[in-house]
């Protein structure tokens, strides 16, 4: 009997960073997240992180319109889900309570 997945309601520092960037208001592409993170997210791992977060239900994605000139692959846009926002809020407020230095 397989063990229940232990990572379902956990959030890693990278996942929290992605949520922070997405919660600021708009949908972003993977590469835009890499740029916005100022080097904290890497181009080679960002889609693995995003895929895992989508599996956990923290973010949702949709395909953008195909690029003009046809033939290229459409890009994928990411946005936080309600669960993702709640996780991010709970985590941030929890950290602030436990380590008040972070709140300043």
């Amino acid at each position, binding site marked *: 009997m397989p063990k229940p997945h232990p990572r379902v309601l956990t959030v890693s520092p990278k996942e929290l960073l992605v949520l922070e960037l997405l919660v600021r208001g708009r949908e972003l592409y*993977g*590469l835009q997240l890499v740029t916005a993170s100022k080097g904290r997210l890497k181009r*080679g791992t960002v*889609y693995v992180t995003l895929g895992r977060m989508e599996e956990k239900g923290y973010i949702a994605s949709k395909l953008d319109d195909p690029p003009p000139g046809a033939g*290229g*692959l459409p890009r*994928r846009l990411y946005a936080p889900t309600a669960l993702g926002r709640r996780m991010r809020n709970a985590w941030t407020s929890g950290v602030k309570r436990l380590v008040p230095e972070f709140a300043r």
Partner: protein
Amino acid sequence: MRRPGDRLRTIAARVCRARTMERLIDPALADLQVEYENAVLRGRKWESRWVWISGHLAFFQAVVVHGGARTIGILDELTDEDRRTLIRTSGSSAAIIAIGTVVLAAVPFLRFLTRSDPNAARLALYVIPQALPISVPVGLTFGILWGLGGAAASRRSRTLVLIAAVTSSVASFTMLAWVAPVANQAFRVSVARHSLAKGTNELTLGELGRLLEPGARDPMTRPASHSRGLALNYHTRWALAGAPLVLSFFAVALTSRRQRGRLMPGLAGFAAIFGYYVIMSEARGFALDRTVPAFAAAWAPNAALLILSVAVMRAGSGRSGLERAGDAHLARTHTMPPDQSTGT
């Protein structure tokens, strides 16, 4: 117009699941294409080249990280029975590989051992890289048949065994391409006690490849007929590196059938290994006679065993499908209320 990443996507689409394509491959390649196109439209030649290189590197990194994460995911889900099966498989494989390596390495080594050479230990080490590409596929085949056989191994166990087989194939390739040729040459020089020109088996894969290029000059001035041998040697090293994976796949296919006992699968495994090396030897003769191209001769054993494995797997799945139908029928009969099952 072909865009950067189009070919990679075609290859990935053949091996990856739809979900992986949707979540990992396509988004990564879409970003690469858009970024590359923007750089080209702005007329920034060097930037577009940089985007091409960094985008491809990032893509491969993503694939490796995803593969690792998938493996860890499978490891997380292992049951106690899976662990026992994998320990049995890896233990028996390792034991057979160790015994096989010692036996194969001892054959050329014994001649020099009797001379009580002070370099005996070093000479023994030089022989091991030659033995490993043979002992590893043999050990894996029997290890899998012993470890996974006799019980219904889970899909997770079989996937992990095949991942180990892929790793073994990569290790075998390293041995055949670079380590064994260098060790061979070191062995020969140690025994002769003076410098020697490299023979075909002592050339690394890169050196062999360069000799096969049109217009390349062979410093050994070998006869023209020897170029066939060179080409065969070159392709055989690539193909032989696939032996651990192909033979493991065959063993996994055999164990995926419901079976009783380990004797019949063991005999089938022995026949597969024997057949593999017989085909290799026969095909080699045809290649040297120019009846078949060197590439085809080198890959013939892998192709034959792969076809056989798929046939065994299909036969197994057909049979287990029938068995499942039978089991379902039995289950229905057993779960029926007594009044229905007895017809009253």
